């Protein structure tokens, strides 16, 4: 595999790997290599994250003062809409599957590539095309409908670039569908000999579940956007109650996808966390089958609860009760995962490396986010909390405290594999802690604000809410620094980082049994799998003491 200097212990980069196998622009833009596609996604997704983050900063700046003084209300509407659209459709939904999933799934199952590499490339192109339309719409003047595009505002009254941005999201949806389709096929047909379903890393199980949701749910948002666009153009009235239409129908169709979409966002994060917790506790994950099946359960049950976004919309109370009950049920599989992760850590040999800090952070923050979701799912209590900052805090806890933190954890964990370099552990830990502190300071006050009655999507608020808003904005500043730092030290590591070697963390996973960075065909010899997942036994050949000795001897980056 990778050659290693006898005396210093330093690794040499493999001469031919996926990064230098073909150096022309054409070899990247027309590549079929899932790893290159993943890298191009990484750059694009990071760009969208930054744009969404800038919008978030503007929101927090405006909310420093009770009056709508930084922006006028119309502009503020555009800012929070665009923050939501960019973050949800162009960052959160693709992030882990398109970057980490694309890169790792073939390697984790011992395959040369995904089953359908050209479909993968098409996915990337569709993402770029959709993103371009959306950005064009944003630059022409943006949209102010809220990321939820509710009718009748979006079809009849809004004077903004709904069609352009809607088209961008529509095209992007097909990128998502094709990624999911590809993963399903790959997991079924491309596993190496010996890689049975129950030897798969839980990262792969999570992505399989996510892919089911992508394929089954995304087409419905596509048709919904199409219907909204047609209504905007033709004004037939299918959503207009004065002519016999029903605005709630739009909401049903919209949330049929958009609720499972939140599971598209969080399930891959949970897959990453399963990897982080087990590997950094050096202990076989507790309840492997439970975690695997709970991913599928979340994917399935996630389709049955969409009405909990519509409790006060005018849907029937009977429907509200059914959805409320099922919302309580869908929390159970997530809770099962929490228990299993905790049990995994118990009596494990935990090392608090940066990825593990993110992993533990996920557990705590997703717990809070998930529990507050139960408040919102309880049909009585939700009436008080709907459309307040409580909702905003809840979904940021699960999406940022959950998904984004899991994404960062995954990036840090697999960075050595992807780039062949180690980043600075010191700065990694500092950033992780800044993110954690900044995040809580930003969003915890919002639970209180919401409970006290501050509505969401408002640029101006009563003066008694100002103190908590100031805390929130202060937290956002810390969080912003915490997010910017990895960008700096990770890029720094590309040039000045230590060579990572094939298995810097000394772990049993299949991805650690090839060089860093891997060759284009992932493995020099096609692997034959004879071990179980997360095998940390004595005979797995991973000497922790040896790893620690090497870490002590090697120069600090």
């Amino acid at each position: 595999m990778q050659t290693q200097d006898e005396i210093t212990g330093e690794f040499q980069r493999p001469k031919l790997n996926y990064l230098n196998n073909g150096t022309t622009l054409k070899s990247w833009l027309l590549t079929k290599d899932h790893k290159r596609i993943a890298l191009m996604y990484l750059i694009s997704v990071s760009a969208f994250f930054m744009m969404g983050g800038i919008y978030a900063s503007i929101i927090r700046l405006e909310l420093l003062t009770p009056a709508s003084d930084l922006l006028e209300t119309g502009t503020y509407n555009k800012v929070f809409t665009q923050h939501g659209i960019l973050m949800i459709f162009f960052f959160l939904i693709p992030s882990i599957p398109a970057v980490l999933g694309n890169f790792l799934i073939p390697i984790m199952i011992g395959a040369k590539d995904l089953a359908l590499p050209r479909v993968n490339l098409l996915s990337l192109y569709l993402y770029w095309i959709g993103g371009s339309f959306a950005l064009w719409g944003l630059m022409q003047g943006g949209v102010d409908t809220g990321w939820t595009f509710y009718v009748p505002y979006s079809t009849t009254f809004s004077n903004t670039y709904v069609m352009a941005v809607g088209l961008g999201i529509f095209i992007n949806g097909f990128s998502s569908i094709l990624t999911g389709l590809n993963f399903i096929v790959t997991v079924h047909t491309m596993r190496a000999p010996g890689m049975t379903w129950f030897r798969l890393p839980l990262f792969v199980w999570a992505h399989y579940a996510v892919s089911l949701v992508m394929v089954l749910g995304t087409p419905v948002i596509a048709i919904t956007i199409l219907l909204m666009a047609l209504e905007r153009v033709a004004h037939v009235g299918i959503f207009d109650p004065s002519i016999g239409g029903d605005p709630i129908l739009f909401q049903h169709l919209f949330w049929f996808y958009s609720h499972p979409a939140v599971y598209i966002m969080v399930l891959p994060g949970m897959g990453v966390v399963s990897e982080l917790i087990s590997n950094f506790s050096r202990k076989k994950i507790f309840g492997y089958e439970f975690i695997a099946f709970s991913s599928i359960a979340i994917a399935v049950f996630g389709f049955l609860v969409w009405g909990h976004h519509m409790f006060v919309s005018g849907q029937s109370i009977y429907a509200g009760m059914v959805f409320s009950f099922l919302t309580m049920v869908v929390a159970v599989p997530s809770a099962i995962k929490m228990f299993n992760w905790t049990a995994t850590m118990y009596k494990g040999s935990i090392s608090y490396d940066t990825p593990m800090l993110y992993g533990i952070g996920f557990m705590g923050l997703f717990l809070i986010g998930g529990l507050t979701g139960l408040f919102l799912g309880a049909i009585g209590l939700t009436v008080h909390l709907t459309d307040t900052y409580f909702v905003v805090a809840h979904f940021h806890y699960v999406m940022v405290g959950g998904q984004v933190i899991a994404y960062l954890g995954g990036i840090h964990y697999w960075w050595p594999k992807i780039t062949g370099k180690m980043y600075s552990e010191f700065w990694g830990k500092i950033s992780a802690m800044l993110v954690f502190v900044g995040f809580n300071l930003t969003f915890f006050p919002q639970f209180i604000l919401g409970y006290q009655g501050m509505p969401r999507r408002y640029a101006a608020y009563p003066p008694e809410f100002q103190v908590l808003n100031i805390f929130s904005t202060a937290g956002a500043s810390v969080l912003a620094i915490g997010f910017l730092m990895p960008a700096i030290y990770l890029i720094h590591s590309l040039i000045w980082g230590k060579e990572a070697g094939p298995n810097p963390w000394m772990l049993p996973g299949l991805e650690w049994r090839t060089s860093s960075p891997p060759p284009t065909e992932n493995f020099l010899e096609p692997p034959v799998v004879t071990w179980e997942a997360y095998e940390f036994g004595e005979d797995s050949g991973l000497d922790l003491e040896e790893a620690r000795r090497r870490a002590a001897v090697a120069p600090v980056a």
Partner: protein
Amino acid sequence: MATHVDTHGEYHPPGLQHQFEDMKQQEESVSIGMWMFLVQEIMFFGGLFTVYLVFRSRFPMAFAAGSNHLNVVMGFANTLVLIVSSLTMALTVYYAQKGNRNMQVILIILTMIFGATFLGVKVVEYKEKYDDGLVPVTGLNRKVKASAGEEHGEEPAKPCWEGAHEEHEYINPKGEFQWHDCSLAKKAENEGFLTPTEKIGYYNPASGQIDANKFRDKVRIYFWIYFAMTGLHALHMIVGLILMSWLLYKAWKNTFSAEYYMPVEMSGLYWHFVDIVWIFLFPLLYLLGRHFIAHGG
């Protein structure tokens, strides 16, 4: 492939892609992939079927009235045309597996002819709607100015449920959606099977009578759903024809055989799916109100 370093030196069967170990793995992958694509297509159309379901359950008589105005002969013919094209498609796969180039080519051409016939009939139908003022978008109907000397309210207007079989003169200066006949609503009122939504939706609250414009609006929603569903279906047919052209080219070059025929099979799956959608669209759009008028209702 120029920038891709291949570490194998083995024989590759024709059409085998580099990421697969053998043809069986490729065939399995392509098959699951196409079925996943069909699953998402089902959900895509499913959204429109949901809209249909919601509106039909709320305004069944408006739907029946609109449906009766569709050209059922053309719809019936189109259904048969698609079924025949499905047969020719299935036979194409059969002959592709046998490596019979000539039969493949003939059958693909036949499939395309039937597909094109379907689209041609749809064009005729759509043109009929345009001529009759049944396109639900203002401005997209045949415009006919009112002739000079005619005023808008000539005689006291008859209630919209009478004179159902009379010909209304077609005056449509703005190209709006036109509907005059609400006799089915009246029939439902008389026989007591209006839905609660209909009891509000069709009626003028002031007079307590069925209001022609309100009924017309619901029929307009029916026609919108008709155009949306058949339009989306027709779009898929067009894509299918493009797919068939590519397949024809490949079959002409004798690409397919017992060893390598999956592209034909997969194209067939897509074609049959489009047929299945129509199998549901025909009764749901064309036949739902026939029993009201068949025995003189």
